[in-house]
């Protein structure tokens, strides 16, 4: 009995599962309106005419730590925002998860890492994450000034937790931003994101 219940639950999970990814590279990015860590509402529509980066973050994840403790992601953010790019850090971790960080704490942590996102979005319900099909922390997306999604995937080409690999990896986000800002098409528009599972609210 117990076993069959479990199988049923698994089956239901399989049917109802699936992050409803509406976001397809090459098409218009899903619109959103989310409250940020300071209580302000941030909408994608606010940034028409600018490049926008979405970065899923969770300070408790070793893959996020790899790119923050090494200065890789903060550096990428600083370079991007210095060129007029809007960088939105997103937390889709459920409030019930053990590594959930309340807004002030998350902001303080980012600050301690010299991170420089334009805003930090609190997607506690997971709506934004599900709309974009975000699976891991980190998971990165780039939207062009016309609102088209032009990159989705990993921060770089080496799926490991070892900070020593950053030096020899290709930073896909830098690459995509460099190409997009130079008016060129993004050469690697989709890559496989790696990292910790996002703990979505059920």
């Amino acid at each position, binding site marked *: 009995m117990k076993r069959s219940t479990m199988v049923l639950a698994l089956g239901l999970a399989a049917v109802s599962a*699936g992050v409803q990814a509406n976001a*397809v590279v090459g098409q218009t990015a899903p619109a959103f309106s989310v409250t940020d860590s300071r209580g302000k509402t941030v909408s994608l529509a606010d940034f028409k005419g600018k490049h926008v980066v979405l970065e899923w973050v969770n300070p408790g994840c070793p893959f996020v730590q790899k790119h923050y403790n090494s200065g890789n992601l903060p550096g990428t953010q600083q370079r991007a925002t210095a060129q007029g790019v809007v960088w939105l850090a997103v937390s889709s971790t459920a409030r019930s998860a053990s590594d959930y960080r309340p807004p002030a704490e998350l902001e303080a942590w980012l600050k301690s890492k010299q991170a420089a996102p334009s805003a930090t979005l609190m997607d506690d319900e997971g709506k934004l994450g599900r709309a974009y099909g975000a699976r891991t922390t980190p998971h990165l997306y780039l939207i062009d000034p016309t609102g088209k999604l032009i990159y989705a*995937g990993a921060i770089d080409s080496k799926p490991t937790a070892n900070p020593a690999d950053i030096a020899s990896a290709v930073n896909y986000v830098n690459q995509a931003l460099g190409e997009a800002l130079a008016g060129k098409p993004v050469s690697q528009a989709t890559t496989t994101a790696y990292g910790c599972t996002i703990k979505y609210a059920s």
Partner: protein
Amino acid sequence: MSLFRKFLCWLALAGLAPAALALGGSVVTTEQVRAELVAQAPEGVQPGKPLWLGLLIRHQPHWHTYWKNPGDSGLPTALSWELPAGVSAGEIQWPVPQRLPVGPLVNYGYEGDLLLPVALTVGPEFKSETLVAKLRADWLVCKEVCIPESGEFTLKLPVAAATAPQAALFERSRVAQPRVLAEARAEAKLDEAGLQLSLEGLPADWQGKTLQAFPEEAGVFDHAGAQPQRWEGGRLLLTLPISAQRSESPGQLALVLRQDGSEREQGGLRLAYAVANWPALPGAAPAPALQPAEPAAPASGGSSTLVALLLAFAGGLLLNLMPCVFPVLSLKVLGFTQHAGERRVLLAGGLAYTAGVVLSFLALAGLLLALRSGGAQLGWGFQLQSPLFVSGLALLFGLIGLNLLGVFEIRAVLPGNLAGARAANPVLDHGLTGVLAVLVASPCTAPFMGAALGAALTLPAVEALAIFAALGLGMAAPYLAASLWPGLARALPRPGVWMKHFKILMAFPMFATVLWLLWVLGQQVGIDGAVALLGLLLALALAAWVYGAQDLKPRGRAVLGGIALAVLAATALWAWPALREAPPASAVQAESGSGWQPWSADKVAQAQAEGRTVLVDFTAAWCVTCQFNKRGALADAQLLADLQARKVLLLRADWTRRDAAISQELNRLGRSGVPVYAVYAPGASTPRLLPEILSVSLLREALAL
């Protein structure tokens, strides 16, 4: 575990019994797992005897590690071995994984007790009383949070004694491996809903049951999506949803299946399948830029095409000197001296021959281009990947050799009307000679010019065809020149008795070619196939003699001819299955003791991720340049030792038989023929390609030794 505690542990074991030291694997314990390196060597450590090592991971409740495709997140466990010379480790034999749903996401991995076994190959170079195996393992262990962990393990195995303390564990892990069933087949089709798979030949007791499918590719599928499936008779129709953010377009894929709700120990099935026509990825990069393989690559497009055409022409000229072509053509050209007067006949013959050669090359190249645009993974030399084609060529060369020896005359063998047609229509005869010349030249074009022609195939169709036409023109040029200027023909030595000797002498290069084709066939289908072909050659020689012998009485010919034909037919029947048989275990595996391992794209990526440089030798038995390099620069003992010291991973991609994965990688590198030598530096997305002729100093320079 601290070093000191590890040391104490060793000390305790050593104090108990020396044998226990050999058996006791080293253990790493964290809060989440207990990991242990274990061994299974029931017959000791000997070449050819089973030898397995394995990482035994006992997870704390609810913690898990990952499968080779971790699913929506996570990382596969990675093993990096340090083994003595002569011993090499294979890949992890992953047991069937389980689905690990995390909210709306799904991972593939393992909970509970898990053994990841790896087969070891021991070569004759390994000489020691103990095998010391060192392992560095990296795994990501997750429950709600994830923790990357690693451990270093050392295990000493006595060579002479059996080691099998965990035999039951290895046996259970063997059963939990996905099996490959010869009769199980998968066909795939892409549509709006995803990848539609039609699976046949699944185990009978699976019929009507719900199955779980685990794709081995990480960046293709929507792992959390539902997998609609229904049985239609003995066939399972299964849909795998494609990820909206797919990042890969693999040509060769594989799937592991298990029954829903089954235990890991019930194992599962692995099925490989192909998907040819992926829609282009958004903003997909153009073909990766390659570093020029040849130092003197001309810069501008127009002149490089011209240079390529000239080179092709020169290559065609050279083909006339190849052992497969020279005997036929030299005799044909010498024959001109007998018709030196009839200028018009000569000219028409020369032009017909040229047309025959050029059109044959164009037809072959056109066929190849058409097949490739249809998604087939073929390259130049593809003809020689077919054992039947190789056999056919060997028989043809055998016959030509016998003809040159004077065993039979074509006229005597051909049916009267056909011989008559040939005699009455010399132009057609010359044209057909051209076709024959291209056919007999093919075992030389592929081995000597495979890479160049392969590169030509990746050009736009018109340019590719122009290059093949130039090659044909070059090949036909000497013949055409001799027919255009009879003065040239007159400059050739006068015909005489020497021609008869020359003709017989020319039979020997022909037989040498047969010898070589036999060796290629042996690589493809094994010794049985090679001997079957020898049998066919023997029977054919008998038949050729019976029908060609001038002085045989009609009655004798009829009797002997009947016998010869019967022998030929019987031999052909006997030989047929051997020539089509499934290939024997890869030759590369047998020589893995030399430090070379069979190639796979995963191994390259994994080694790069570990910071190792990889040297890949794309080779084939029928490729002479490849064999020259393999036995020359690539076999240099000092070089191999230095490569091993630098931990350069040596991989050999054997293209002797058709292999879509290798063809695809060659395509990616902008080549479609072998040899190709590629150096993958850690972190570089495109490898550096080396020239086709290798030298030790060149390799040292390229690998910075």
